Every structure is written in structure tokens, then in C-alpha cells.
């Protein structure tokens, strides 16, 4: 059971175009059964923040190839062990 989580989501390099041009979003993720992870976050973003053209942002479970994800200024790749 995950408590509500306050997160700042920031888009840049053109990704903000899909979010009405807004770069920084302060969001509060609602409490839910599963713990919050990036995959759930992306789904949530798609449903609640994304304004247009989901195919340009999300591909399947993850972001579209070419879009970089940083968590606290560190590469997402580092947090995905094999």
C-alpha cells in the first residue's frame, strides 16, 4: 500500500510540447495498492498530464526510444538492474 507521493515532473528538449508547453509539473500521485514505480508513473502521466499524441511519448510500457528519463538527475538506466 503506497501513500500519496509528491513528485516534480519536468519535461524538456521539446517534450514539453506534448504537455501544453508546460515544463515543470508539481504533482501528487494518489495512494494505491502497488508501490509507485516509473512504469506506473508513466501510465499516470499519460492519463493525467499528456495533452496530445501519446504515441510520441509512450511506446508500450516505456517511453519512446530517444526520450531520456532522469530520476533526481541520474540516468534511469542505472536503476534498472538485469
Amino acid at each position: 500500500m503506497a501513500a500519496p507521493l509528491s513528485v516534480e515532473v519536468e519535461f524538456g528538449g521539446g517534450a514539453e510540447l506534448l504537455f501544453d508547453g508546460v515544463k515543470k509539473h508539481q504533482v501528487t500521485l494518489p495512494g494505491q495498492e502497488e508501490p509507485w514505480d516509473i512504469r506506473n508513473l508513466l501510465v499516470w502521466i499519460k492519463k493525467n498530464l499528456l495533452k496530445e499524441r501519446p504515441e510520441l511519448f509512450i511506446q508500450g510500457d516505456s517511453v519512446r526510444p530517444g526520450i531520456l528519463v532522469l530520476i533526481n538527475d541520474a540516468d534511469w538506466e542505472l536503476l534498472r538492474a538485469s
Partner: protein
Amino acid sequence: MCEVGEDYREPAPAGPPPPRPSREQKCVKCKEGLPVVVIRAGDAFCRDCFKAFYVHKFRAVLGKNRLVFPGEKVGCGTASRRRPVPAASRTPGLGGGAGHVGGAVPPVVFLLPQVLLAWSGGPSSSSMLWQVLEGLSRDSAKRLRFVPGVVYADEGAACGQSPEDRAKTLAEAKLVLQTVGFPWHIVALEEVFSLPPSVLRCSAREPVGTEGAYKAAVDSFLQQRHALGEQSQPCPQHPQSQVGPPPANQTEALSRLFNSVKTLTAKEELLQTLRTHLILHVARTHGYSKVMTGDSCTRLAIKLMTSLALGRGAFLAWDTGFSDERHGDVVVVRPMREHTLKEVAFYNRLFAVPSVFTPAVDTKAPEKASIHRLMEAFILRLQAQFPSTVSTVYRTSEKLVKAPRDGCAAGTPGPRCLLCMCVLDVDTADSATAFGAQTFSQLPQTQPPVAQAEAPTVSSCCSGMGGARRCCRPEEEEEEEEEEDPRAHVTEQLCYGCRVNMKDLPSLDPLPPYILAEAQLRSPRAKAEQQIQEYLLEDHEDAARPGES
């Protein structure tokens, strides 16, 4: 908490995926720091090592290709031993150029090359700008040595941006340029309508007035700095930079041109061509001998594949190599070609490099909208699964050699494409190429078979002028042909790739006048040359083109 142990990708085709670096690991270089970014297939770097790696790569690319020759004697100018500048008063833009030296040190005589940095506002070119800035302000021997300038091309009209958006972007761009502090030139793409036809000519000589322009630019730059002291000074706005928005009729003409292009692919290619000409013109006018563009490794890998698909395979070495000397006097170099887009993005983020985002012609376009988009999606998707894709393609591009085709006359280079200015990939004896087939299929059906049979044997006479199309026929017939088909004398001066692009332009009228003028200029001259070819001595081939400069 983030989930660990879950692989979000589709299963790899063969074998388990290689172990990925995790946060618990240390930086692979210093073995101490906490890693922040994964480079290449699995190297995790900490912040400081990443910075060192990034900066080193930039300087190594310049050094390896001998772009900058510290101490090379080229001409006159006074230059420095460095006078030590206390850190507190170091201004951005300090460095480079000539300095004045007190004391007993005799003035060393060498000329620093003037390099124009082509800045699009995007991350790669912004990073390049920042690297140059930092490189020029380093101490003594490690300092980069050239005089930089920046050019920013406002392409809003071609991308359908509103005047308000363009003004906003321009204001942001100016802020960044002022921070950087180099002399800058802001040009609007609309200025292609006032370009002279000479921009399309390859010039072997240095641009006229180079020495004077250099000295003047360096001197005024230094004077400004001395006069205004430590604060960041306004950079000299060259009289040719646009002060206000371009005239509405030019904007309209540009919009009309781009709206008339049928496919996005051709639009992108046309935009690139015009942009290149514009930047070339700025470089020549202000005496810059080199232009640096911010093409990253990723972009060049995509460009390589795209160029193949567009029929520009013959020119890959120039289009994707480190240096591109097709213009003669101005050399285009690509110092960012070993940095992947990921590295660039991370560096800019971690070290706060400012950039200005502008939408391009293909922003938000669907994946299959153009060949460029398709290739980009292909490469990036492949890269996600196989992280060595981009570097493999890049290494392949490094091996490309700029050699003339076998069968071409050695020595004198052949004629050049009107638009991309590459030496035409023509070999009249070999009609088995796509180029030959295209040329052949353009021959009018009524042409007597005799002339066609003669085609392979008439070698240098017809070279580059669309094969046997216009040669060895009575003049009257030629003139008639010309009037019936005005496009032909432009098309026949293009390389295969450019011809294919032109097909998507229903009418050549909206093109900027310099292109049509130069096409016109080359046509009758070429014909006259063909007619007197047999009377010319071999040496005179160079002298027969007096007007090129």
C-alpha cells in the same frame, strides 16, 4: 520505490541481456564516485568523470583532425603569451583572438583562424558553443586558439511559426548569445532571397579581404573588451544582421516556397540546402574560414542512413565526415561527431548549458511522414535494444574515403551539383547507375538513334551535362528544347539526390532567385564550352571558367 529486477523490454532474441549497471556500482573510471549516467553499453560514470570524458572528447576530436594549429604561422597579427587573468574578473568570451603583451616578449606572428559556430539553439550546438567558450578561456597551452563567431538562423517562416513566437524565440536566443559573448550574427532564412549567385560557386581562394576582415574583427572585439572593462559587453552587431523582422513579402515568399513542396522529405532537404547556403554566405562575407556545426554522433548516424535512402550515397564522406571542403574556401567541421545525443543531453542538464528550443519542420510529425523521421525512428529503436548501433554506424562513416570515382578524368574535378555543391557523380560510360538510368530516361523519344549511339564515345564533352542530352546536335534544336522545358536546364545540373528532391517541387518559380540565376549562368557557358571543346588545349580547362570566384 522503483522496481528492480524487472526487464521492461521484449525478450532479446538470443541469450540473456548483459548485466546492466546499477546504482550500487561505482563509477567505472574513478571507482569512487556515485554514477549518474550510463554511457555506451554499460559504463557508468560519475559526474566529474563524465565531465572530463565529455570535454576530453571534444578537444580530442579537434586535436586529432588538426583543426586548430596553435602556433601555425599563417599571416600577420599580434598574439599573446597569456596575460594571467584573475579568476574573479574572467569574463565569458575572454580568450582567443590576439592579445597585447607587455614586457620583453617579442610579438609572435601568427594568424588565428576565424571559426563560425552554427548555432541552431538545439542541445548539440548549444553544447558545442559552451565547449568552445570553456575551451577558449583555459590557461596557456591547453587553450583552444581561434577567433569564434556565432550565427543563428531564424527558420520560423519555413516552419510556419507565428511572428510572435519567432520574436519570443529570438529574444531567448539573444539572451544566450549575450551570455556567451562571442560576436554573433542573427540571420533570417528569408535572406536567401537576397543571396548572390556566387554563393553556389566553389571558391578555391581565401575570401576577399580576409586579412583586413580578420584584423578588424579581432581589433574591434578587443577594443570593446578593453573599453567596457569586466562587464559582459554588447557584441558588435554587424550591419548585415537583421535588426528587425524581415520584410513581409520575403516571409510570404518563403512560406509559399515551403508550402509548395509536396513531401516532408523534400522540405527538410530544401531547408537544409538553403540553410547551408545562408551560413556559407555569412561565413564568406565576414571572413570566416571554418564553420562548426553541432551534428552529434546520433544525428550523423541517422544522416548517413537517410542519405543512403535519398540517393546521396556518393557523398556520404562529405555529408558525415569530420571536415567538408566542398565549398573550397570555407570548410565545414563537425566537432561534436563523437558525442551521442544522450551524452549531450546529460551534459547540458548536469552542467546547465542553456539552449533554446524551436520547433522544426518535422516536429510532431508522425513516424512515416518523411524518410528522415523513418530513419530516425529506426535507428533509435534499434539503439534501445542494441546500444552499440549508433557507434557502429559512426565508425563505419569514419572509414569512408573521399575519392573520385574510377573512370572520371583525374586532375580536374568535374562539374558540381548546383544545390549541394558536391562533385557530380557522373560517369557517362556507365549507364548502369541510377543516375545514368535517370538521365537516359529523360532523353526525348524523338531523338535520332545516331546521337544515342554516340553518347558513350563522347566523353569529356558531355560530362556532367546530363549525358548525351544536348550534345552534338544542331544549335537550333537545342534552343527549341530549352524553351519547351525550362526545368531541364536546372535539373540537369543537379546530382541524383537533388534531382529526386526537385521532383517534389511542382514549380521552380518560388525558388530564391540566386538558384535560378546561377543555373541560367552555367547553362549557356557549358554549352559554349562543349562546342569549342575540340579547339581547346587541355590546360585551358581551368582558364575557361574565368567568372568563378
